[in-house]
């Protein structure tokens, strides 16, 4: 008479292997999840810094009456830097501004904070945008 009893449970000798494989798989998935979340945060930070650079460039070329002389516009670099700085510092970022003729270029640098710090992701982001007095932002969009 056949006395073999079939069971859904894994043989006792295989249970340790299953536990080990599951642990390895979960660890791998967690690392992958951390990387995925960090990538999403880095992408969002990149867009945020780029948008802040554009806003700073726009602010830099919003000239005052004193900068409009004799029918022409002369951007005061100090005033432009101040206007751009007002916008960037409101977001907690650092900006530098260069002025060429009627064009201002703002470069914004911002730190990036990750929920799950993962090796390989940048600690800060930098973006540049240029704006012209008459045309507005034309580069760095």
């Amino acid at each position, binding site marked *: 008479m056949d006395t073999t009893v079939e069971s859904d*449970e*894994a043989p006792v000798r295989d249970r340790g292997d*299953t*536990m080990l494989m*599951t642990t390895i*798989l*979960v660890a791998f*998935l*967690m690392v992958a*999840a951390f990387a*995925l*979340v960090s990538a*999403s*945060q880095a*992408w*969002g930070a990149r*867009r*945020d810094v780029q*948008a802040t650079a554009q*806003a700073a460039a*726009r*602010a830099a070329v*919003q000239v*005052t009456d004193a900068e409009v002389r004799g029918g022409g516009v002369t951007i005061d670099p100090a005033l432009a830097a101040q*206007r751009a700085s*007002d*916008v960037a510092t*409101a*977001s907690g970022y650092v900006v530098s501004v260069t002025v060429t003729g009627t064009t201002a270029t703002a470069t914004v640098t911002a730190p990036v904070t990750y*929920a*799950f710090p993962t090796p390989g992701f940048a600690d800060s982001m930098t973006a540049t945008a240029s704006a012209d007095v008459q045309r507005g932002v034309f580069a760095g969009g």
Partner: protein
Amino acid sequence: MAFSVTALLLVAFFIIGALRITNSGNDVDAAARAGARAAATARTAAEGETAARTVVSSALADRGVACAGGPQVAVSRSTAGLATVTVTCTVGLGDVSPAGFNATRPVTSTASERVDPLRGGQG
């Protein structure tokens, strides 16, 4: 087997919850920026506030972000000529709470834009 399935389900819940929070944060950032631009180009502070609220709600709806109780929008104009918009969106996480998330989590973002002196100079 039960341990394996439970562990993998918790990991899946964790990934979904974490991505929902970060993606909502990115969407709220974008909505706040759009709101700040709208507020900065309005002629008056009152018009700016109305425009910012409309734009923020529209931006979040376009991106499919559902805020519990609707988005909270705060608009201000400083004497230095900055329009600042702060958006708070409460993200629902009740369905992934087994992974350790609270049922809801507020996501806040602030954006500033310099008021256009030609259009918004009336304060």
